[in-house]
């Protein structure tokens, strides 16, 4: 799969063409470590030293490298990348089998579970500001999230989606995206499980 979509270029203020694709390779994972991570850590160090720091400090969640190559061959797992200007701008991993719906009205029905979603650090405003740099692109994470919802429709899951929201993103998934907070999961560091019903997914895609 390879689709051309638009994201926003912060320098020109214009919408620019980007690509969403699902042929992810090990090289893409290497890119997130070799190129993204040093920028993340520089930004985090700058944030930590800032005397006016009132925003949350992002902390790298240890990325499990075990069996990544084998995972790429699993039918149940789908990986998506977003590239623009010849560089990887975002990456996402979804699982279509291991988890199912927890909301009572759709209990047990299959859903697309977002296991991992990350935007390149130069696209994150809160990381670029402490470094005195401008954010490059906007809307990357939203496009990947949109791809996850569309994937759910393609799977015949009717848009049903689930994820464990990290603490700083709960408001985003509940208020902005319109997901239902179901409850904290003791098996996943007490993170908040959020879920889309088909109607919520439809509203998200339509922008209602």
């Amino acid at each position: 799969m390879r689709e051309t979509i638009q994201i926003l270029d912060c320098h020109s203020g214009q919408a620019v063409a980007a690509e969403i694709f699902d042929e992810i390779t090990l090289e893409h994972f290497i890119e997130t470590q070799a190129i993204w991570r040093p920028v993340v850590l520089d930004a985090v160090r700058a944030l930590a030293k800032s005397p006016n720091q009132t925003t949350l400090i992002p902390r790298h969640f240890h990325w499990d490298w075990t069996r990544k190559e084998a995972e790429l061959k699993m039918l149940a797992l789908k990986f998506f990348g977003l590239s623009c200007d010849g560089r990887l701008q975002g990456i996402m991993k979804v699982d279509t089998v291991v988890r199912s719906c927890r909301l009572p009205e759709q209990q047990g029905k299959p859903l697309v579970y977002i296991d991992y979603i990350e935007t390149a650090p130069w696209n994150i405003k809160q990381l670029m500001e402490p470094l005195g740099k401008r954010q490059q692109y906007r809307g990357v994470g939203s496009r990947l999230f949109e791809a996850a919802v569309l994937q759910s429709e393609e799977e015949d899951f009717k848009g049903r989606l689930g994820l464990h929201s990290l603490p700083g993103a709960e408001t985003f998934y509940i208020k902005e995206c319109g997901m239902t907070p179901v409850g904290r999961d003791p098996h996943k560091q007490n993170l908040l499980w959020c879920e889309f019903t088909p109607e919520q997914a439809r509203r998200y895609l339509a922008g209602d």
Partner: protein
Amino acid sequence: MNPKRTMTLNLTDQEMSVLEELSIQKDLSKTALLRQALRLYQIVDARISRGEKFFFEDPDKQKAELMVL
């Protein structure tokens, strides 16, 4: 879009009945349900091949091994 190939599936009445029942329960087409079954089978097979064991745990926390393959 990944190109798809067509396969004819011969099922017994009982198998078809189970397939139909699960499809309704999971709100999935029969094709989508069989696709899920294939994905699950691949994951289970890969992990058992690596030496892992597949267990079910009942509400009383009693583990029973599910042998596959």
